[in-house]
């Protein structure tokens, strides 16, 4: 590398040059068309739209010129495939290849009415984007475009102007907390790893997004992988790690491809590798692909999986911060946590700490799904109310139905009933009513959803995903599941309900890892707010929503 570099030019100047060249190249075109190539829009046919756009643009003359890019996600997945026209910021939705001609005919003029998705609607206006600030506006596969949009300035700032301790201080003062769900203070974790003894240290990015109904991290990895790399590299510098791993679940082949491509390009630009941007900091980054085990989202299980073993957790302490990968101090953060870091370094801790609530700073990305009008990916400031998310951003419950509950935190979380719609969405408030922030899945349920059935669904999931190492989780989740099945079949008694509650308590307090400890949450939470539905199944032999295939107790006994 260094031999090809003119001696008088500093590495950061060289990056600046790449950025300038990219900006100049872009300025040659009056119009830039970004086609969303996230997993969601690809599944809706965005590759065909992009191909048609490229062919049409090549075949006609457009005043001022037009460039077509594969870009990221604007979050309105329900309207996929989406196309964004920059710099005019025009968003189109549900585009078919045959719509391409109309779009190009109207470049720079009035947007095509039938395809236009105005971005001055609450879905966009009520969001605040930090993690996803450039998503949809940069090319997912070109580091030059990321650089031209201010990418990697935070890494250069950290490496040239800040000591590792200053970086950690900045993150601590920002109040950033782990976005994987538990909300551990990120700065504190970094400081522990930095202080841990040992020459060899690792940074690991947890991209094993396993909660059903959660696809926030996928969006970052698919659309915006450079941002993730920048955050991880800053973290590695701060804690003194020389090697990093991004653990991506096998179900996300596109993320694997995009992240690997991003690493290759970053290495070429000397943003990963030996002497990163001309400093003495060396850092290498590799991808590890998971193999389909929910428990690998738990940090010690994830480390075991990177080491090539079964993904089974081990007791903590020692925490990975002191003894992680191959016994060395290891920093593990979630994708979204790392993706926040460049913005904090660029804008300062005070800026970040000014967003959100007293205890929960910044924003949170949610995958908003279920019985909701605008399904998609949203990023909101902490402290927004659930009502605002559901009714302003989400557009309310479709088909004139009544809201029943919002489920957050997936199989480890709980549900929030109508009476708590005005709850502030932050770590503390959610924990107080028995749910959790979780990694960002938010599933909206309406009056047709049976809460006992939902609890049974999550317990089945935990039972199947239990790794089997500790007995409370392996046996307990199965027993809880069978009790719930008994209730939904109408064969349970009130004594079973008592047993169910006792069992939940035992599994919660005696399981080895977070999977088992949190597994009873969906049951406990639904029992807290929808106990009458359990009673209706048991005492009245009747499912209020008609979802459960209830048999009368007498029938069940006769059949068995």
């Amino acid at each position, binding site marked *: 590398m260094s031999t090809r570099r003119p001696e008088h030019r500093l590495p950061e100047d060289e990056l600046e040059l790449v950025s300038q060249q990219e900006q100049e190249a872009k300025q040659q075109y009056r119009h830039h068309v970004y086609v969303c190539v996230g997993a969601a829009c690809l599944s809706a046919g965005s590759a065909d739209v992009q191909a048609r756009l490229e062919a049409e643009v090549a075949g006609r003359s457009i005043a001022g010129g037009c460039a077509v890019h594969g870009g990221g996600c604007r979050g309105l997945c329900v309207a996929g495939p989406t196309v964004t026209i920059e710099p005019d910021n025009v968003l189109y939705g549900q585009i078919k290849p045959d719509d391409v001609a109309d779009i190009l005919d109207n470049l720079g003029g009035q947007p095509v009415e039938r395809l236009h998705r105005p971005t001055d609607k609450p879905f966009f206006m009520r969001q605040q984007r930090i993690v996803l600030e450039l998503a949809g506006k940069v090319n997912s596969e070109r580091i030059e475009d990321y650089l031209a949009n201010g990418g990697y300035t935070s890494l250069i700032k950290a490496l040239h102007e800040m000591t590792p301790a200053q970086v950690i201080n900045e993150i601590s003062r920002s109040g950033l907390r782990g976005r994987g769900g538990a909300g551990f203070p990120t700065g504190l974790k970094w400081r522990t790893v930095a202080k841990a003894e040992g020459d060899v240290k690792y940074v690991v990015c947890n991209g094993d997004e396993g909660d059903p109904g959660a*696809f926030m991290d996928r969006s970052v990895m698919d659309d915006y992988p450079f941002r993730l790399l920048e955050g991880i590299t800053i973290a590695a510098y701060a804690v003194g790690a020389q090697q990093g791993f991004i653990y991506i679940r096998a179900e996300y082949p596109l993320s694997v491809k995009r992240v690997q491509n991003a690493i290759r390009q970053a290495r070429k630009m000397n943003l990963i590798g030996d002497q990163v941007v001309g400093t003495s900091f060396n850092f290498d980054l590799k991808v590890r692909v998971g*193999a389909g085990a929910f428990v690998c989202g738990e940090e010690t299980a994830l480390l075991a999986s990177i080491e090539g073993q079964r993904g*089974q957790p081990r007791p903590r302490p020692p925490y990975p911060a002191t003894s992680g990968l191959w016994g060395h101090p290891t920093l593990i953060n979630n994708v979204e946590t790392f993706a926040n870091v460049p913005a904090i370094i660029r804008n300062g801790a005070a800026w970040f700490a000014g967003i959100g609530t007293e205890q929960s700073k910044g924003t949170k990305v949610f995958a908003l799904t*279920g019985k909701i009008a605008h*399904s998609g990916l949203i990023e909101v400031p902490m402290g927004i109310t659930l009502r605002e998310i559901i009714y302003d951003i989400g557009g309310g419950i479709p088909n004139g139905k009544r809201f029943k509950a919002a489920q957050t935190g997936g199989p480890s979380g709980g549900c929030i009933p109508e009476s708590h719609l005005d709850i502030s969405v932050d770590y503390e408030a959610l924990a107080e009513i028995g749910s959790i922030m979780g990694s960002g899945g938010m599933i909206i349920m309406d009056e047709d959803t049976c809460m006992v059935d939902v609890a049974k*669904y999550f317990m089945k999931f935990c039972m199947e995903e239990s790794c089997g190492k500790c007995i409370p989780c392996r046996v307990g989740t199965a027993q809880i599941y069978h009790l719930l099945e008994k209730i939904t079949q109408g064969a349970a008694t009130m004594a079973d309900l008592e047993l169910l509650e006792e069992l939940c308590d035992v599994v919660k307090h005696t399981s080895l890892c977070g999977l088992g400890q949190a597994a009873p949450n969906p049951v406990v939470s639904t029992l807290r707010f929808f106990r009458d539905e359990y009673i209706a199944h048991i005492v009245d032999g009747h499912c209020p929503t008609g979802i459960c295939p209830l048999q009368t107790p007498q029938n069940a006994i006769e059949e068995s």
Partner: protein
Amino acid sequence: MRISTASPPNDDKRWRIVNATMRRHGYQAHALIETLHTIQETFGYLDESAMRYAAASLHLPLSRVYGVATFYNHFMLKPKGVHSCVVCVGTACYIKNSNHIVKQVERALDVVTGETTADGKISLSVAHCVGMCWLAPVLLLDDEAATDLTPENTVDKVEEWVAYVNETT
């Protein structure tokens, strides 16, 4: 760097791809999952001889390889069908009745979840969220989502696809 003296189960040239993965990781034990990924990508599934070869090459007991191969859902110990049919049973799909969809698909294909049809053509599986929640309930027929699915029209849609599959292969 460790070396390996084990020889592949047969003279299929594709073992070179597997060897390249193991060599890149210096035949270390931590290369096991990466190696199994490569074997499955190359040969479609993990058979006994492949697992024995991975064990010998990475200096691991066969029990360790078998343990890892069976622990993770992604690894298949039996060949998969040429075509795949995946019913999503993520939360958003579940509350939109995907469990009924599973039953209907099983009926239409005459196969239980996790198995392959008798002619070896189609494998049926369920997934915990494929991340297309706005289309819920989601049924992926060879990676393409069937739209506007209800338990009532599932059988028709699947049978239509099976007819198309049989015509084209």
